[in-house]
């Protein structure tokens, strides 16, 4: 170490320890006294995005379709009751869940799970990134819409009394559906006490706006950073407090990051801090090679999703689940014909799953027109019979009593898709 470095550490060391600013409580009233968080019971939507385009036909299997096996020579799964580990789990006389979705199948049996088929975007893109953007923004084909549909809902209905934890994401980067003008916390997975105490001064909670004059053109940018910083300080203090409470639940979640994230969502809901919207991303569903629906890549992921959602429902219990709706989605389905590598390429129509006491479960929703080439989208993919915005709107209507269509939440929405009616009314 050279002299000046030693000087530096010495100088800074001497005046640092015990200096007020490093003290956890002195500068941060939020930490000194936990925020006054009223107990708020409210319904909650948990949006789960499976990124990469989940293969519908390996998840919700049309086992009776005469073309299914020939389109999927290596990937087709067997009908329910067949011998072997690829036997699927029956939903009705046409469809069955992948054999790795036992918990979701049980929820279906209890009327708590509603699968929807041939749901998707009216836009023809097979690009992951466009399809995800369009869907998460609730604006297919409209590149000028830059905010997420859930964020717009929060923005449109915000009041001065909004809970700090009205919306959260339990991952370090916010999903696109929650991006926008309404500041939503993306939870960092690091301890933040010291940082909060130091930076709450630079990022004070204030409506007064920016101090000092930034040169023209970039005020907006700094103002945005300032505001997001202030929200970080407030929201994180409360979220940290909620998550640090000892857990009462005995339910075992899968030991996966998705499992841990949903366990934390359950904790925030159970704490009754006014959580209305939570969203999570789950990546890695783009199986061009060796899809593995029975025991490979897809199977492992479906097992995780099913096990985690099963644990979540058990954890919250029937009473709380009455007010919760979990919506599982992906940007598109995959081509009905498998490719040359025991995988599938990007397709069009996909599926969704809705779980919770709020759904009319136990029934497969959506129109099905079979796998005849003539009935397929561009003769290769499942068609989209239901615009995803129909499902989004029914969720907001049923859970929050918010009429998204009337409120114009989806710009230029003119879809003629028939309703699904899978959510009980608010």
């Amino acid at each position, binding site marked *: 170490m050279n002299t000046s470095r030693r000087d530096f550490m010495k100088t800074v060391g001497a005046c640092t320890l015990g200096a007020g600013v*490093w003290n956890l409580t002195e500068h941060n009233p939020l930490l000194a006294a936990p925020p006054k968080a009223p107990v708020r019971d409210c319904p909650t939507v948990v949006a789960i995005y499976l990124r990469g385009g989940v293969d519908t036909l390996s998840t919700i299997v049309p086992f009776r379709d005469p073309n299914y096996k020939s389109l999927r020579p290596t990937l087709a799964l067997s009908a329910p009751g067949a011998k072997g580990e690829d036997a699927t789990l029956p939903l009705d006389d046409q469809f069955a869940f992948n054999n790795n979705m036992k918990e979701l199948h049980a929820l279906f049996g209890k009327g708590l799970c509603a699968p929807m088929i041939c749901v998707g975007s009216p836009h023809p893109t097979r690009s992951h990134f466009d399809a995800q953007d369009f869907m998460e923004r609730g604006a297919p084909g409209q590149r000028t819409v830059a905010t997420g549909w859930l964020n717009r809902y929060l923005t449109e209905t915000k009041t001065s009394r909004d809970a700090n934890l009205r919306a959260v994401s339990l991952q370090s980067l916010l999903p696109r559906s929650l991006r926008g003008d309404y500041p939503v916390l993306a939870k960092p997975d*690091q301890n933040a006490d010291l940082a909060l105490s130091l930076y709450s001064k630079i990022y004070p909670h204030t409506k007064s706006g920016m101090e000092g004059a930034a*040169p023209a053109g970039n005020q907006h940018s700094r103002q945005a950073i300032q505001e997001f910083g202030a929200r970080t300080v407030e929201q*994180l203090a409360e979220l940290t407090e909620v998550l640090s409470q000892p857990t009462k639940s005995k339910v075992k979640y899968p030991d996966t990051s998705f499992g841990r994230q949903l366990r934390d969502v359950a904790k925030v809901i159970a704490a009754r801090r006014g959580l209305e919207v939570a969203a999570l991303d789950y990546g890695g569903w783009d199986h061009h090679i060796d899809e593995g629906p029975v025991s490979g890549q897809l199977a492992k992921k479906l097992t995780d999703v099913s096990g985690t959602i099963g644990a979540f429902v058990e954890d919250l219990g029937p009473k709380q689940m009455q007010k919760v709706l979990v919506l599982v989605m992906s940007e598109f389905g995959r081509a009905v014909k498998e490719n040359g*590598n025991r995988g599938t390429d990007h397709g069009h129509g996909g599926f969704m799953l809705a779980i919770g006491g709020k759904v009319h479960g136990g029934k497969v929703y959506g129109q099905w027109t079979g796998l005849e080439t003539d009935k397929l989208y561009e003769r290769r993919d499942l068609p989209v019979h239901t615009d995803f915005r129909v499902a989004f709107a029914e969720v907001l209507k049923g859970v929050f009593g918010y009429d998204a269509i009337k409120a114009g939440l989806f710009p230029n929405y003119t879809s003629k898709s028939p309703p699904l009616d899978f959510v009980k009314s608010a």
Partner: protein
Amino acid sequence: MNTPAFSTRFGLAALGVAVTTLAIGLAFSNAQTPSRPLGPNEMAVHVLNRLAFGPRPGQVAEVAQTGWRKWVEKQLHPESIDDSATEQLVRDRCPSLAMSLTELMDDPKDQQKRNKIRRDRKEELIDSVILRAASSNRQFQEVMVEFWRNHFNVDFNKVPMLAGHFEENVIRVHCFGKFEDLLLATAKHPAMLVYLDNSVSRARGLNENYARELMELHTLGVDNGYTQKDVVALARVLTGWTVGWRPGASGREYGFVFEQRRHDNDPANVVGLELSGRKGMADGEAAIRHLAHHEGTAQFIVTKLCRYLVGDQPPQSLVDKVVAVFQKSGGDLRETYRAIVFSPEFGETKAYRSKFKTPFDFVISTLRITDAKVNASRRLAHELRLMGQPIYECVEPTGYSDAQEAWLDPGVLVYRWNLAIQLVTDKLPGVKVGSAFTDKVLKPSTQTGRARAVIDQIMPFAYDSRTERLVSQSNDLRTMIALALGSPSFQQQ
């Protein structure tokens, strides 16, 4: 260069300008101030923020003195800048970067040994990325390597043995050359062929993945003049472009292979280009060259470059001018960069500090301004993972976005704040603040003087009076530095 007299002069000048502008700003607080050309000091800050990963200690003053144009001109010719110290360091610490594809792929059968090699390669690659970005004298080259690394993204976890070779022999070799050459080099590199599955695509077993991304992400941009038919046609034209071992001068050699047996010989039309289907690999090359020179590609690439270098919403007038340069020069990237960075739109207040730093920008600029010595980059790699931008692990072929909306959420700032605190409290394993920085901030004998030095170094000409006030009010140097590094202004470039 850094005489005390100059530093003082510079410090006073900075203070003067800040105070003046503050007064003006307050007088017109609610009016929309029109964009004006940046002054010479601001311009020095601006080029170091945008065309480098932020200034090193004292560097703003240096560039302001020699003139920013001179600095930029030199940076446009990275080969003219001596960078032997950093390159030596990379050679010593990251030997796998110099290996041939054959050496890289000739790994032992033993799974444990393979895993170890894989881990080492990853660490070496990440180490080299951080070392070069933080300490290379060819800063603009590093900034453009980062751009193309994301444009032609490959995910280390899918191509562990090949990603480093790809950066070294494709991105670094061609990023100041012609776009066409860069594009063809990516198309023939095993890392790209494996990453986007073209290596397994056959006439009877087509895989569309690469063909789609080649048009959507690498050339035309999404929905820009191609259809699903074009995707299939291009995928067919590119069948047989794969990887493998073949006999070479000194035994077996690994690399790009064109396999006629897998190739589809049908005639095809790719975005208006008719191909006979009989020319084998040459048909694929023709298709790729056709895409490289397509009008839509010029628009897409130039818009993306302007977003990266000027601002998230670059003026269309600028894009149009630069598209003309790109096309006229036959896709010459150096000429294209030059057209952007010497444009009036680049040097306006509208562009100044208007971009939100990506996590990578933040980490590297922090290392640069504090003269940090990185003896091990493992911890930094971990921090970048937490911030959502692990190096060479972007799963999506888009690469990482450089737009504010992609990175600015409540919560993400916490990682930056924690990093700043760890760095100043000496708790970031493998990373130490260096003397070029400590010399500068310890030079003044008063706390006020030190606060001024911290502000001048970390947030020069930021006009951020709240942070400046809080920094000055602190009686603790470490706190001052951490506050400045975590301030709104240091998140901007």
